[in-house]
């Protein structure tokens, strides 16, 4: 009897074992870390994993073409018209479109969605408040023109082209006012509810979300851009990259995100798996706090540092596949991005620049995130700077501690990364080449770098409507920053992912939000 019971248990167990190795046919299973996820409300969500879901859950009036992100395509709006004063835009909504709830998409929804971002004043709200919008004036800046038209006005001196770029950012997602207000608590514009639910018109909607565990999205057949090909997207929290690799290798996940270069190399030539390095807009750079010591404020030291960064050794050796060499503040793929790479690793040249400036026995402390690839880069820099006679002491910390140190200027130098907030060159220009000295936390402000001329030029670029003129001005700004600034921009990242080979139609662009699941089939 005991033997037969054991046999039954073993048989059942082996039956369940043999069932492993394939994901459900109607479901895309994605293995990634969800530990960063705080909010799925577009008015707050600014973490990688929530931003990556916004294209699936919500739509904007206009959005980047997945194949050519510089091209903004009408999405919920069919057309738009700039006002004669160049401080307004009138959008005409597409006919017969509706949210996942079945509610029609109206001008009131557009007004509600944009106004709540400004009134809630959460992390990504700064993208829209650049237009001079505030909780006090926003209601007067947005108005319904007709049953399918809405007018948007702004006070800031910026061109309609720039406003269109901002309105294509996830923070400008259009939300179902009726559903959201039904879940409003204490005048929070439905924020608490939207943290874990969705009320949009995207190709998917949130079916179930367990924080830091799983996000299950199910198809929205009523999506204005058409129903998606798969029924479900299941995003599992798998915090360890090595485990993600095993899952995709075994066929228990269709996509594994954010692999390290070692996992990526291990998956090359594995049957059934296609490793892909997606170029993304994150730049890795060295930043000096100019007030930390006179040496760190010396432009000769900045110049020497550009020859002590082992660009090729890191991008093509140490972290092969994970980076490309990039030395300007606009990532490749952005309007006006400068592709020149005038600097190479040359310790002798760096030594002569330092000697000419009378700088001897230079030493500085470098704060660095204690996670790969930051620590790998920092260690490579420590070795390459040592060859030029510069001693670098590494101070590994967790990312939140580094942010606090940089905000309070309690650091000498940092090696870190910058990712754009929306698809417009201003997102990086305003960080690297602008310090308005008004409390704005730009990178120039973190570096204590005072640059009134560059700040004014960055501001001026926003007023230009002509893309060629804008691109020319941004190129000039990039050259200036490239030649003399307390930054050494060295690398542009690639996101290493692995897909099951039977997967078709997956698209991922260079900005964090540019993840498209709607055309995926298997």
């Amino acid at each position: 009897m005991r033997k037969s019971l054991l046999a039954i248990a073993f048989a059942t167990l082996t039956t369940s074992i043999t069932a492993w190795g394939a994901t459900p046919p109607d479901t895309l299973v994605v293995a990634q870390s969800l530990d960063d996820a705080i909010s799925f409300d577009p008015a707050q969500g600014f973490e990688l994993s929530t931003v990556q879901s916004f294209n699936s859950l919500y739509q904007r009036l206009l959005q980047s073409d997945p194949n050519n992100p510089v091209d903004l395509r009408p999405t919920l709006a069919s057309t738009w018209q700039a006002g004669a004063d160049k401080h307004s835009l009138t959008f005409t909504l597409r006919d017969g479109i509706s949210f996942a709830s079945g509610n029609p998409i109206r001008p009131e929804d557009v007004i509600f969605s944009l106004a709540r971002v400004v009134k809630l004043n959460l992390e990504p709200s700064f993208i829209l408040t650049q237009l001079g919008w505030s909780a006090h004036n926003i209601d007067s800046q947005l108005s319904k023109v007709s049953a399918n038209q809405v007018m948007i006005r702004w006070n800031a001196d910026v061109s309609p082209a720039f406003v269109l770029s901002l309105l294509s950012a996830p923070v400008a997602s259009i939300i179902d006012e009726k559903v959201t207000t039904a879940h409003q608590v204490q005048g929070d514009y439905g924020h608490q509810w939207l943290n874990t639910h969705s009320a949009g018109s995207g190709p998917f909607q949130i079916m179930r979300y367990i924080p830091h565990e799983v996000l299950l999205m199910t198809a929205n057949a009523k999506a204005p851009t058409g129903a998606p090909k798969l029924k479900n997207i299941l995003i599992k929290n798998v915090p360890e990259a090595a485990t993600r690799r095993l899952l995709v290798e075994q066929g228990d996940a269709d996509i594994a995100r954010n692999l390290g270069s070692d996992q990526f190399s291990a998956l090359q030539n594995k049957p059934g798996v296609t490793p892909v390095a997606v170029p993304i807009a994150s730049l890795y750079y060295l930043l000096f706090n100019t007030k930390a010591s006179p040496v760190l404020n010396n432009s000769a030291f900045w110049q020497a540092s550009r020859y002590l960064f082992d660009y090729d050794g890191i991008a093509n050796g140490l972290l092969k596949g994970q980076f490309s060499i990039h030395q300007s503040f606009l990532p490749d793929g952005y309007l006006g991005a400068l592709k020149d790479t005038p600097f190479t690793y040359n310790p002798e040249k760096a030594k002569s620049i330092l000697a000419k400036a009378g700088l001897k026995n230079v030493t500085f402390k470098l704060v660095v995130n204690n996670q790969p690839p930051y620590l790998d880069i920092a260690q490579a820099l420590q070795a390459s700077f040592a060859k030029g006679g510069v001693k670098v002491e590494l101070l590994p910390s967790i990312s939140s501690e580094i942010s606090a140190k940089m905000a309070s200027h309690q650091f000498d130098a940092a090696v870190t990364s910058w990712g754009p907030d929306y698809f417009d060159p201003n997102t990086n220009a305003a960080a690297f080449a602008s310090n308005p000295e008004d409390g704005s936390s730009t990178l120039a402000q973190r570096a204590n770098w005072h640059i009134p001329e560059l700040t004014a030029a960055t501001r001026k670029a926003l007023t230009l409507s002509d893309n060629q003129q804008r691109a020319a001005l941004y190129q000039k700004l990039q050259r200036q920053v490239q030649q003399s600034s307390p930054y050494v921009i060295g690398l542009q990242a690639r996101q290493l992912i692995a897909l099951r080979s039977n997967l078709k139609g997956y698209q991922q662009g260079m900005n964090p939000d540019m993840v498209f699941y709607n055309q995926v089939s298997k």
Partner: protein
Amino acid sequence: MGFTVSSITSTAGVRRLIQRLTGSILSLVVTLFGLLAFTFTLSHLSPVDPVLQLIGDHASASTYAQVRHQLGLDQSVIQQFWQYLRQLAHGNLGVSQSTGQPVLADLLRTFPATFELATCALILGAVGGISLALVSVWHPKSWIDHLARIVSLLGYSVPVFWFGLLGLLLFYAVLHWSAGPGQLDDLYLYTLTPKTGMVLIDSWLSGDRTMFFNAIAHLWLPVVILGLLSMASITRLLRAGLLEENSKEYVTLARAKGAGRWRIVWQHLLPNTRSLLITVVMLSYVSLLEGAVLTETVFAWPGLGRYLTNALFASDIPAILGATLVIGSCFILINALTDALVWLTDPRTR
């Protein structure tokens, strides 16, 4: 050993038991208060800015000021602590900044996952550890004694995440004996209704036996890895205790009087080392309940250890305090239980 359980059922015994219990509850409250005050102070001494962690580097100054006010960080530390205690008295542990959810809901979700893993690992660790220690005392310097020493040495010295990754590679990727990371296959994530938060029990209650076996197929590998860790500490400490006891004169006398090996083990060695045994097993349980963060990370197990670690990195003070409260309570309760068990079973301690 003239001890019988009935002796504590007398009135005096009951009174003493009540006194001990009252003392334990008082010490629980005082210790938890001290623990909270200490953790709260430490959290505020941390160089991490919780506001920056929440809103990132790119947000505007007005957003920073608003969020700082919402988190109550513009008040003094004492005021913040007082507010926290007041809310706690109403059963409100606050809202986690890193999940956006009430801390209580997060704890009710993550603690059962850790409890399930820790309890299964402890059972394995205790059974394996006690057996190995007994056999190694039974046959000192035999191969099994060497095995016991190797197991305890390995368990102590090899990092658990490395064991975990190797285990996954061998049993999941190569041999396909384990169902891999996570608590259940994706298929069941749609259908399982959480009742207790423990997948093994929930899947059993659902009536779907295939799901239950799937839960076992996911659970056994992390249990074995953690069980090995627990087994190592239990074997090492118990083996030393048993060997020491084995060298005492009363054992030699018992042997001289012709007592068999089993009789010596069951009637002399084990009863005289029970305090040590209970303490070692309970300590191991506490350390498992604290959450095996590395094992939980490698096996994508949504437990308390990982929740607390994420909260620490994010300087998420409500979540840190909530998790500390749970772990502290476990520690104190298990300590009290250990004391009570030792007191009940070992007359020498009364």
